[in-house]
Structure formats: structure tokens, C-alpha cells
């Protein structure tokens, strides 16, 4: 059992976990300030017979302070987040050398199409495998998402990548895995009664392993 | 333009703190209701605009499916009924209930005719094969789709948005006709409206003009563009 974000296995983990931590610190300060303040006031100012409360309608200076500080913090946070957002999801964020993989979602399975030997989708040597996503490590992967029926969502927690798969739209997402291993691809958008079991295995392999696997899988698929 | 004293409002304290909006409750209530109606039609019209903007292909050119002539006449009719409504309002402001009754009746007739023509138009369209789901198979319009006069890819959206928008507009007109008839029978005929009390006429008038206004927008974006 662990108490933090899932293990890190892609290049997005750096900025996203970093931002998460930063926000945790900011909100943590606000949290402590408020909760400790409340408890303190509750204890200190509880009613005592014969005492009258301090009659005041407010204090402009205090209010200005606690308006500006959050405002400045939030704008700064917005700018920083946006910086990473543009790198992760922005229009031109997909690295040009990204390796394309087609992912077609349907109730309730993932159909993964590999580009075959030529490294291009939409050619004759493409082949499709159910519920198995193999990717080479250390290389940007471009997933081209399409859906057969309803909205699904492509989610690999260890990669910090999530993208809804919307019927009628061609959506591209990208990521770059950094640690070889086996992970799980989940569907994180309610898509019907089988939503909970719409999962696939993700294999992050070294380039050689991947190439070997692909050769074999292509052969199996063509039979 | 105030006549708070005219439509004496039981709910209103004899001397209000501030004079609120200085508009009697019924009228204020109607304006507020119209604000929500704007949002309702914004949802329908917005949907139409967004769907058409992002449609997977050309939209059917105006005038092929829909009968523009008869609808243009209908538009004119609604404009007329709007002016007759405002004439009724002006008449009662001047203290002329007879004239008011006449104009109110004209408004009702205009509105009812509008609805009648729209029903006729719907029947006609459906006969030709234009339905909310798009184009009915084997119909006259299906032939036009087949020969390329109408774009197959967007006819489904066309049907959905057309019937929903005009249908809900028609529903609003019908409600207007019903409430005006009700007021005509229970208030106007018994002579309950006067120079000093015409809140009902003004309020229903506001609704009626709003419905007209919506039609003006709908006519342009649905029939002409």
C-alpha cells in the first residue's frame, strides 16, 4: 500500500509530480493556516460569562492582504501549470519523431494497431492486437485514439497520461516511457456495464525486445 | 413607463424601502422569466450553430427542403401580430378597452394562424420525407440526397436542429395564444382592464414580442443561411 502517486515511469512524471507537490505545499500552508486558526479561535474565544465580543465590522488592510496573496499565488500557479500543459497537451507538443500506435476503443476492449516494420500507420504491414500495448522505452509514442461507440479514456497511471477517446474525433496523445516493465492501461471514463473490466496490459520494452516482439506478433497476426 | 400604482400589488408593502426596480411584480417577473427563456433558446440555437459549424460537410442550401415563401409569409404574420399586440397595449393605455379588445383579438388570430401554418408546413415536410432523424428512406427527399442535390452527411443534423428549434418556438407561440385567449375571455371581455390596470396586457405582450424576436432570429439562421 502506498500513499503517494503511482511509481514514475514516463517523462511526464517529473513536471506533474512536481506540480502536485508544489500545490500540496501551497494548499498545505493554507490548510494549516485555516484549521489551526479555527481550532485556536474555538478554544481561545469560547464564550465566558460576562464577556462581550469585540465589536468590529472588519479591517480593510487585513482583507486586502488576504485577497492579494491568494490572487498572486494563483496567477503564478496558473502560469507555471500552463507552461507544462503546453508541453504535454499543447497543439504542437507531439515530438516529430514520435512512434505512432493506433488505439481503437470499443465496449469493452482496446484494439491496438502497430505500424509494422515500416513504422507508419495506415500501411499494409499494420497489424492489430487486442488488449496489449507494447511500447519501446525511451522513445516518444504517439497514440492515435479512436472509438467505436461511446467515450472511453486512455489512462496509464504510472505514465501520468490520460486522454478521453471520443467517437467522431481523431485525438492524438503522446508520452515517453522511461522504465521497462509491465503496467496496466485502464479505461477511466464510464462506458457501460463493462467499464470496470476494460483494461489492457502495457509492456514497456527495450527497443530490441520490442522489435523482436513485433516481428513475432506481426507473423502471428498475419496467420 | 411605470404604473406601479396602476397594477396595485397586494404583496407590495405600502411604502417600500427602496422602490425596487420600480416595476410592478408581474412585469418584473416576466422579464426575469424571459431571461431564463433566453438561456433556453441559447442552448438550442447554440447547439445548432456549434453543430453546423463543426458539421462533417456542407449544409443543405436554403430553399431546397424548406418552403421559404410560406414561411416568409408566416414571418410577416408574426410581425403583424406583434404590432397588433402593441396596438392593444397602446389602446388600453389610452383608456380604450374596445380598441384594445379588437387588437388583442387580431393578435390571437395572427398567432393561431401562425401555428396553423406551421403545422401544415410540418405535415408537408414529413410527407416529403423530412423528419427529425433526417431524411426518410424512399421519400422524395431521399432521391435528392441520392442525386447529390442534398448532402447526405448533414441531413441528420439538419432534421434534428430544424424540428427542435422551430418546434419549441411553435410550442411557445401556442402557449402565447392560449394565455392571450384566456386573458381575452376572463379579463378583456368582462372589461377588467382599464387605463389604470393593464398589467396583464403588458406582461403577456412582453412574452409575445419575445417570441416574435426569437422567430426573427430563427427565420434568418434556419431558413435563409
Amino acid at each position, binding site marked *: 500500500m502506498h500513499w503517494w502517486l503511482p511509481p514514475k515511469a514516463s517523462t511526464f512524471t517529473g513536471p506533474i509530480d512536481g506540480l502536485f507537490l508544489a500545490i500540496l505545499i501551497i494548499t498545505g500552508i493554507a490548510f494549516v493556516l485555516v484549521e489551526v486558526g479555527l481550532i485556536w479561535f474555538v478554544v481561545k474565544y469560547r464564550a465566558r460569562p460576562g464577556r462581550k465580543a469585540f465589536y468590529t465590522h472588519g479591517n480593510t488592510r487585513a482583507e486586502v492582504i488576504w485577497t492579494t496573496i491568494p490572487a498572486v499565488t494563483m496567477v503564478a500557479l496558473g502560469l507555471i501549470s500552463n507552461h507544462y500543459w503546453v508541453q504535454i497537451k499543447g497543439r504542437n507538443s507531439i515530438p516529430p519523431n514520435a512512434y505512432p500506435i493506433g488505439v481503437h476503443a470499443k465496449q469493452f476492449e482496446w484494439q491496438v494497431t502497430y505500424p509494422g516494420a515500416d513504422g507508419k500507420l495506415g500501411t499494409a504491414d499494420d497489424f492489430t492486437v487486442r488488449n496489449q500495448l507494447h511500447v519501446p522505452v525511451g522513445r516518444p509514442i504517439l497514440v492515435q485514439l479512436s472509438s467505436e461507440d461511446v467515450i472511453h479514456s486512455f489512462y496509464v497511471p504510472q505514465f501520468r497520461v490520460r486522454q478521453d477517446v471520443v467517437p467522431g474525433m481523431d485525438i492524438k496523445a503522446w508520452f515517453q516511457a522511461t522504465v521497462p516493465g509491465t503496467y496496466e492501461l485502464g479505461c477511466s471514463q464510464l462506458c457501460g456495464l463493462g467499464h470496470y473490466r476494460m483494461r489492457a496490459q502495457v509492456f514497456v520494452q527495450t527497443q530490441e525486445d520490442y522489435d523482436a516482439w513485433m516481428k513475432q506478433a506481426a507473423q502471428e497476426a498475419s496467420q | 413607463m411605470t*404604473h406601479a400604482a396602476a397594477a396595485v400589488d397586494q404583496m407590495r408593502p405600502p411604502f417600500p424601502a427602496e422602490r425596487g426596480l420600480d416595476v410592478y411584480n408581474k412585469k418584473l417577473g416576466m*422579464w426575469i422569466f424571459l431571461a431564463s427563456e*433566453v438561456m433556453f433558446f441559447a442552448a438550442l440555437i447554440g447547439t445548432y*450553430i*456549434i453543430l453546423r459549424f463543426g458539421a462533417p460537410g456542407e449544409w443543405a442550401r436554403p430553399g431546397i427542403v424548406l418552403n421559404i415563401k410560406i414561411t416568409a409569409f408566416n*414571418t*410577416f404574420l408574426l410581425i403583424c401580430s406583434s404590432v397588433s399586440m402593441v396596438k392593444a397595449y397602446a389602446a388600453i393605455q389610452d383608456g380604450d378597452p374596445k380598441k384594445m379588445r379588437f387588437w388583442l383579438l387580431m393578435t390571437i388570430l395572427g398567432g393561431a394562424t401562425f401555428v396553423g401554418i406551421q403545422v401544415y408546413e410540418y405535415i408537408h415536410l414529413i410527407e416529403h420525407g423530412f423528419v427529425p432523424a433526417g431524411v426518410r428512406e424512399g421519400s422524395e427527399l431521399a432521391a435528392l440526397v441520392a442525386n447529390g442535390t442534398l448532402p447526405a452527411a448533414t441531413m441528420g443534423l439538419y432534421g434534428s436542429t430544424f424540428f427542435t428549434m422551430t418546434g419549441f418556438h411553435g410550442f411557445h407561440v401556442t402557449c402565447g395564444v392560449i394565455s392571450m385567449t384566456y386573458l381575452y375571455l376572463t379579463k378583456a371581455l368582462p372589461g377588467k382592464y382599464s387605463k389604470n390596470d393593464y398589467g396583464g396586457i403588458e406582461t403577456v405582450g412582453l412574452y409575445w414580442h419575445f417570441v416574435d424576436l426569437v422567430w426573427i432570429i430563427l427565420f*434568418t439562421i434556419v431558413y435563409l*443561411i
Partner: protein
Amino acid sequence: METAHKRPNYILIWVYLAVLTAAELALAFELPIPRNLKLLLLLFLAVWKAALVGLFFMHLKFEKWNLRILALVPLPLAVIFILAGMSEHIW
């Protein structure tokens, strides 16, 4: 009961509306101009007509500013919504 403002000439507004409608029809079906220009002109005419109805028939022109604001509040919201929905298709 005050009628401080002069009552607008309703018949004149009616004529305006009728003429503008005729203009719209002519514009839509007779005038050989580029589609986008046509679209813009048509929308302009529609808004013009709507404004006439709002200002004179619904006598917004003669109401106090706070009632006018009430009437106008929803419009920017609607516009924001439509623009956001459309932006989906311009990227």
C-alpha cells in the same frame, strides 16, 4: 400614470420590420455576393430587427437602466458558450 416619453410610431416600426424581412429574402436568394458576406449581412439584419422589437415593442428603450441590464445579462453568457463550443473546431 405618466407617459413622459412620446409613444413611438408603432406602424412605422412595423413597416421597418416588413421591409427588412423583404431585404433579407432578397439578400438570401437574389443577390450574387460571396457567402460569408451574405452571412454577415443577414445576421446583421436579423439583429437589427430583433433590436427593433426589443427596443420599441417591448419598450426597453423607455425603461430604466436596471431593467435593461436585467434583460441583457444572459446575452454575454450565451455568446461565451457559443464561442467556446465553436472553438472546438478551429484548432
